[in-house]
């Protein structure tokens, strides 16, 4: 028991929290942006897989890491565009389309990877992002290693939270996005095109999701394998509800979640009597629990999952 508490006092746990949270932060922000404009994007799991594969592959083929990030974002945006075209102008079922996008993007990522990369006994690796200590700040005891010795994408994730929170709450574009998710007819009345705003939001949100996926192969790990996203996308969808569609709360949700995940990983090594599968189940069960806790008072965007056709009510 005292071992379990000792783990909490160890800075390596707290360093891991922000690292584990990073792909979730990107994913949650991406899903949140789509949903705020009124589109549920269940393609997230596949888009993250595609981001993980395409970013990694770009670097594997010789490009610098930052190009890998850009390519991942671009691939995510393209797949997001497909989901947007199916669900916004065509108004198809967002559930089924999203699921189809996930199946398609996951399959495509696995196919392209197998096509281009020779896989031997061990999967090939790349040189991933290294921690980038912020000068001076990283020397602060405890806080330094926990907050200021992360890899570049982690800082970008925190920046993205701030930008999205500000953008949604305080800019005209953010207002238009939020209004599209609540009342697209009102957007039309303002002379804006709600469907164009939705397509834009889904494309941008999907790019964020893909960057989150690329973190897995370009920071957390140095190789790709199919199925490596392991339900993180679905967890992000749950976290959006938990966060009441607010970027700030999404950050807190992702951090809380990452804390439990980091803790259970370490707990596995000290609590030997409990089978490791029970620990691995915890994140999924925790997500369901989070959904139950907030479901009743969730402030769902009013037009979420309602396609908008001009003149139809």
């Amino acid at each position, binding site marked *: 028991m005292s071992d379990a508490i000792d783990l909490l006092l160890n800075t390596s746990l707290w360093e891991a929290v922000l690292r584990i949270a990073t792909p979730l932060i990107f994913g949650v922000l991406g899903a949140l942006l789509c949903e705020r404009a009124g589109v549920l994007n269940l393609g997230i799991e596949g888009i993250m897989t595609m981001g993980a594969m395409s970013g990694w592959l770009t670097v594997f083929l010789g490009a610098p890491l930052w190009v890998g990030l850009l390519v991942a974002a671009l691939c995510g945006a393209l797949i997001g565009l497909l989901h947007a075209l199916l669900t916004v102008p065509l108004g*198809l079922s967002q559930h*089924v389309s999203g699921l*189809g996008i996930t199946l398609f993007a996951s399959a*495509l990522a696995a196919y392209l990877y*197998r096509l281009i990369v020779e896989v031997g006994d061990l999967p090939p690796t790349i040189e991933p992002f290294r921690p980038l200590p912020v000068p001076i700040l990283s020397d602060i005891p405890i806080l330094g290693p926990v907050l200021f010795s992360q890899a570049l994408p982690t800082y970008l994730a925190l920046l993205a939270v701030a930008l999205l929170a500000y953008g949604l709450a305080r800019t005209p574009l953010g207002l238009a996005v939020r209004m599209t998710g609540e009342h697209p007819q009102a957007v039309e009345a303002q002379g804006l095109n709600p469907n164009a705003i939705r397509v834009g939001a889904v494309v941008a949100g999907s790019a964020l999701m893909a960057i989150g996926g690329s973190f897995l192969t370009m920071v957390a790990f140095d190789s790709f394998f199919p199925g490596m996203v392991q339900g993180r996308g679905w967890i992000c969808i749950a976290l959006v509800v938990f966060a009441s569609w607010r970027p700030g709360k999404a950050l807190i949700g992702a951090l809380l979640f990452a804390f439990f995940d980091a803790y259970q990983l370490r707990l596995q090594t000290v609590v030997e009597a409990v089978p490791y599968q029970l620990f691995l189940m915890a994140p999924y069960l925790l997500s369901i629990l989070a959904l139950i806790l907030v479901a009743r008072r969730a402030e769902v965007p009013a037009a979420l999952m309602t396609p908008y056709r001009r003149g139809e009510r």
Partner: protein
Amino acid sequence: MRLERRTHTPLSLVVLAPVAAIGAALILAAGLVAAAGVNPLAAYAEMLRGALGSRLAITEMLTRATPLILTGLAAAIAFRARLWNIGAEGQFYMGALATAALGHSLGLPGWLGVPLLMLTGMVAGALLLAGPAYLRLRFEVDEVVTTLLLNFVAILFVGLMIEGPLRDPLAFGWPTSVPVDAAYRLSDLVPRTRLHIGLLFAVAAAAIVWLILDRTVFGAETRAAGLNARAAAFAGVSLPRTIMGVALLSGALAGLAGAVEVMGVTAGVTTTMSPGFGYAGIVAAMLAALNPAGVVVSAVFIATIFVGADAMGRATGVPSFIADVIVSLCLLTMLVALLFTSYRVRR
């Protein structure tokens, strides 16, 4: 140009939609096959030969289609009521695990044990979906996310069991569950192949589901709940009861798929025994436009793609992941095709 809702859908369009969807998916995937440096037509021919070219190939394909028919039915019945059960994969595993656990040491004769074990698998699958259905009805929790998350939990639970209490001591450390007793193995449909009488059970299940959906009050209520939940409730349909009924039936079908696969093919349970039967079942249901008889046909089609792609991969070197690409593309193209069965384009 705008879309206008059709007042009725001609039968020709209903048949044409999946054909067009499959054609479009194959054309789109042809680009990826060509990227592998293989002539797509030659590759597809190889695929057909691999799945339908010999008696053995056909039986392999039908063996693969058997659980797919059942998971396809599970998705079809749920989606009709707009219950988004994406958890057939997990329900399949729970059905398989329960069947192996009970079937290992059940001291009953085969004629009694086999139906009992199928029922066990059905109960296990139904229970796993009852949770998300209850959460939706009681707390308005979206069942898409809960059923998806439970897939991961179910597979981890299988892992826990086959490394723990249900571990097969005779498997030389290979993680697999104890096998079902030989008395409960389903007999071969074609001698000296893997094809078993589970195929007949699956086809019978399709007929029963069709009867339930088309000829009973419950079936009518299911459709009403899916078409317009508020109107259905106004007409006196109890939505909670209908949704829970649909959930139990859908979960039971997916659980049955696991039970039949264990008794017919694998005997023991492993964490990799399903190559995505649950997810492919959703595609089977959509390609059939949620029609139970159509599910049988679309499951056979999907099984053809999967078995054929394996053979094609061996012959041409095209990664067999192409099967997943084609099947997932079918889901997307079918979704678009279905739009044109209910809408027409007007200038």
